[in-house]
């Protein structure tokens, strides 16, 4: 009586052809299943006693060397009864599983591979059968065909098969749309051959996972029926009716409940473990959280007087992620400053670590990544490792953020106006009517054409440019002193880019805030930045004023990056590309250190 767990990443689509080496729990589970099935098959030979032989004088014993699992109410050997009871129990489970996977496989492959009206008919049929209360139908069947558990379990498998059908179907559809299947079809291979050769192997993982999990469910259902007296008829044993017999004496010998319950649980657990381990290897693994856990430091130490010095001073900031082989650095010893009212450009290729620097400044590097050294001093206070309570004074209020992808920046299930009002309430201390007015004010400020109408919309109803304007309004809600903009125009149409950039410049004039702009676009640097920091492989290779960097780039990498700028390209000539590798400061230091030790020896 369980249901499949719904996953947004469809297990069906990712079913692998190859199965991984089994883990320890899986080996244990398989071992138990072998023992259970072996015991059932060999019950006649290896069971120590006749399961029906009563010895009233030895009734209701707890385990003894002679009766390893004790004796029941009538003095019958519990172990022997368990072994003999396994047969009827496991075989009716097998009937259900075969019906479930067999029907699901055939219908799913037919529907998924042929598509069209066949597909529609199968889907319509499954949607009706899925709506039937399966367990109830079983009781109707059992009330008519008394004691016929096999038939009941067959019906159970058949009526549950739509779940399997739909899963196989989506897996088959995924494969059908792949190129190699197209190629096979075009080259005239028969559909049957394609299904068996290409589609079926892809569904193998899925079949085992679903079959095992359904087997566990079927076992529980079978034991319930058996417990209620609709299965194997006493005195013949089944796991379920042994629990039923034990339940009559639970006050005097509760022990008798343990053996049959434990074997049912162990068997179901084993099937579940096998299914689950495969499912985990099928689905892509855990996505990492973008939410950053709270730091431990509860007080921001003042390293300098507030109000004097630069607004932001990043000193030797290093960021890395934890892996099996230790900490892998992403950003190494990055230092730069941003003055009040200044605009700093952080430029570099994708993967140069510039976005990670931005996240480090904002204190939102996410889970699994950590600042491994250095400081981020904002207005005299070091923010690295601070608790949420301390950072609450800065995030959104003094430092704000706009992201590269505006279409995924806000929550998808709340109206953008409601989220903006929340930001205002959190960061600007307004509430009620005043906050609502400020929503419209901010949306007007970012030059949205219909501020009130936009506020009522959901994110998916906005265009990219509109969404980025809303994001900017968001960031402005707390009247920040520093705005971190991570490639604010990259994801937008070229025609919209200029508008957003112009808006940012006008807002900078009006508010006097500082800007940290992450970009790979020299045009953006030329348009808006006072100073530039160039990053390469997680390190800063050069920083200078914007004018100087265009006029006299010092580092070879900066020169190469400037040359590859498509804005300066000549029509009719290939765009220059960056080739080769460049030395970074840490490599130079290492080379110097090597030379130093070499000289000393």
């Amino acid at each position, binding site marked *: *009586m*369980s*249901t499949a*767990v*719904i996953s*947004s990443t469809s297990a069906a689509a990712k079913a692998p052809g190859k199965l991984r080496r089994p883990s320890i729990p899986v080996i244990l589970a398989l071992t138990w299943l072998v023992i259970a099935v072996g015991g059932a098959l060999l019950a006649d030979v290896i069971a120590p006693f006749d399961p029906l032989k009563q010895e009233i004088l030895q009734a209701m014993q707890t385990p003894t060397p002679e009766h390893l699992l004790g004796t029941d109410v009538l003095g019958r050997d519990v172990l022997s009864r368990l072994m003999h009871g396994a047969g009827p129990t496991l075989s009716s489970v097998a009937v259900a599983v075969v019906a479930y996977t067999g029907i699901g496989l055939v219908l799913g492959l037919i529907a998924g591979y042929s598509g069209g009206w066949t597909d529609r008919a199968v889907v319509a049929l499954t949607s*009706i059968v899925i709506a*039937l*209360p*399966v367990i*109830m*139908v079983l*009781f*109707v*069947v*059992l*009330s*008519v065909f008394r004691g016929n558990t096999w038939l009941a379990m067959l019906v159970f498998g058949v009526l549950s098969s739509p779940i399997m059908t739909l899963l196989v179907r989506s897996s088959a559809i995924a494969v059908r749309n792949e190129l190699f299947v197209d190629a096979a079809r075009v080259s005239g291979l028969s559909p049957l051959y394609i299904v068996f050769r290409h589609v079926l192997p892809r569904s193998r993982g899925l079949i085992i996972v679903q079959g095992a999990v359904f087997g*566990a469910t079927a076992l*529980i259902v079978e*034991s*319930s029926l058996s*417990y*209620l007296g609709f299965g194997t008829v006493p005195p013949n044993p089944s796991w379920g009716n042994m*629990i039923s017999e*034990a*339940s009559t004496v*639970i006050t005097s010998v*509760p022990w008798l*409940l343990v053996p049959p*319950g434990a074997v*049912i*649980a162990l068997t*179901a657990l084993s099937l579940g473990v096998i299914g689950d381990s495969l499912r985990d290897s099928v689905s892509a693994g*855990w996505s*990492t959280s*973008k*939410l*950053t856990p*709270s730091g431990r430091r509860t007080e921001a130490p003042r390293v300098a007087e507030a109000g004097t010095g630069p607004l932001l001073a990043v000193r030797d900031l290093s960021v890395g992620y934890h892996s099996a082989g230790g900490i892998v650095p992403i950003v190494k010893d990055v230092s730069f400053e941003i003055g009040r009212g200044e605009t700093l450009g952080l430029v570099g290729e994708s993967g140069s670590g510039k976005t990670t620097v931005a*996240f480090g400044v*904002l*204190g939102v590097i996410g*889970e699994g990544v950590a600042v491994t050294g250095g400081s981020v001093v904002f207005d005299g206070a070091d923010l690295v490792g601070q608790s949420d309570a301390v950072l609450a004074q800065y995030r*959104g209020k003094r430092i*704000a953020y706009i*992201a590269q992808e505006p279409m*995924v920046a806000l*929550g*998808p*299930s*709340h109206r953008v106006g409601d989220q903006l009002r929340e*930001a205002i309430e959190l*960061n600007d201390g307004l509430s009620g009517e005043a906050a609502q007015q400020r929503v419209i004010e901010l949306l007007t400020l970012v030059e949205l054409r219909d501020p009130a109408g936009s506020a009522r919309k959901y994110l*998916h*109803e906005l265009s990219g440019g509109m969404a980025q304007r809303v*994001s900017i309004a*968001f960031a402005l*809600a707390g009247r920040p002193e520093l705005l*971190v903009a991570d490639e604010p125009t990259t994801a937008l149409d070229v025609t919209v880019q200029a508008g957003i950039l112009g808006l940012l410049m006008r807002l900078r004039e009006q508010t006097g805030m500082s800007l940290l702009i992450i970009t790979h676009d020299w045009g953006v640097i030329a348009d808006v930045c006072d100073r530039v920091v160039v990053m390469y492989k997680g390190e800063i290779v050069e920083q200078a004023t914007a004018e100087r960097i265009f006029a006299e780039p010092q580092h070879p990498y900066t020169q190469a990056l400037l040359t590859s700028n498509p804005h300066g390209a000549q029509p009719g000539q290939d765009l220059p590309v960056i080739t080769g590798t460049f030395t970074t400061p840490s490599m130079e230091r290492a080379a110097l250190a090597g030379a130093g030790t070499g000289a000393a020896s």
Partner: protein
Amino acid sequence: MIRLIATRIAVSIPVLFIMTILTFLLASLVPGDAATQILGPDATPERIAQLNAELGLDRPVLEQYLDWLAGIFRGDFGTSLFSGEPVSRLLEQRFWPTFWLATFAALVSAIIGVTFGVVAAVKGGWAARVLDGIGMLGISLPNFWVALLLIVLFAGTLGWLPAVGYTAPQDDFGEFLSRMVLPVTAMSFAGVALIAKQTRESMAEALSRDFMRFLQANGFPRRRLILKYGLRYAAIPVLATISATFVNHIGGTVTLESVFAIPGLGSMVARGTTNHDLANIQGAVLLFTAVILLVNLLTDIVYTLLNPKVRANA
């Protein structure tokens, strides 16, 4: 929205009819007949024929079916073959115990399951692994066995709670609650496991979305992002699982009501199956089916309300 509800109802009605036809078709296949069952093997053929005529069982199946169907529209579900009581009265009496059991179990499963799932998603690591273990156990333990162990421990050894039986809430509310504790606990095991697993998966996905970082960077507190934006994002699949759990619980009442001697629809089905009392089973199964369809309909409506994209199109 209205179209969606209409579609759902359009699918539900055939399902109800299929269930009625199914029960009747199966009944017509019965080897032997109800009169023989009631009177026993020693009864004279005349007596059996007489009783069959009294019960209307000598008529063609189709005629009986249409009669029964017409009766349902008047609220008449026939008469119990064994007790002679009208089935509609039995259904009325037995509906509430089952309703309370299934509803409380769904509530408990939802509250504990969602809490576990959120904690595991947020904490990750060992918390998630422990939860996985509990989850596997939850769906592997037969609920009636858990129920018996609970009885041994809490009613027997500790003597804290009554072992079996049912008291209506209007008669003695305290007694009602104390008698509900064990059945609800036994029933919730699997539900908690399934809901927790789904919540963990959906919540982990919510936390991996870019908007989490954007909103956190712009001053939204972590707690609010998890409890408001995260739960909202995870709501649809989690609700689907809660609804499926409720439907599973309805199946589970048959066994658990028998264990705990609760006079509900579940034990009515179990006893009807033993006694071959088809009128009882037909009535109870039809009512169960209707409840399940209603729950599915409600779930669909809530989906639509939760999903702005669907809502806009409906």
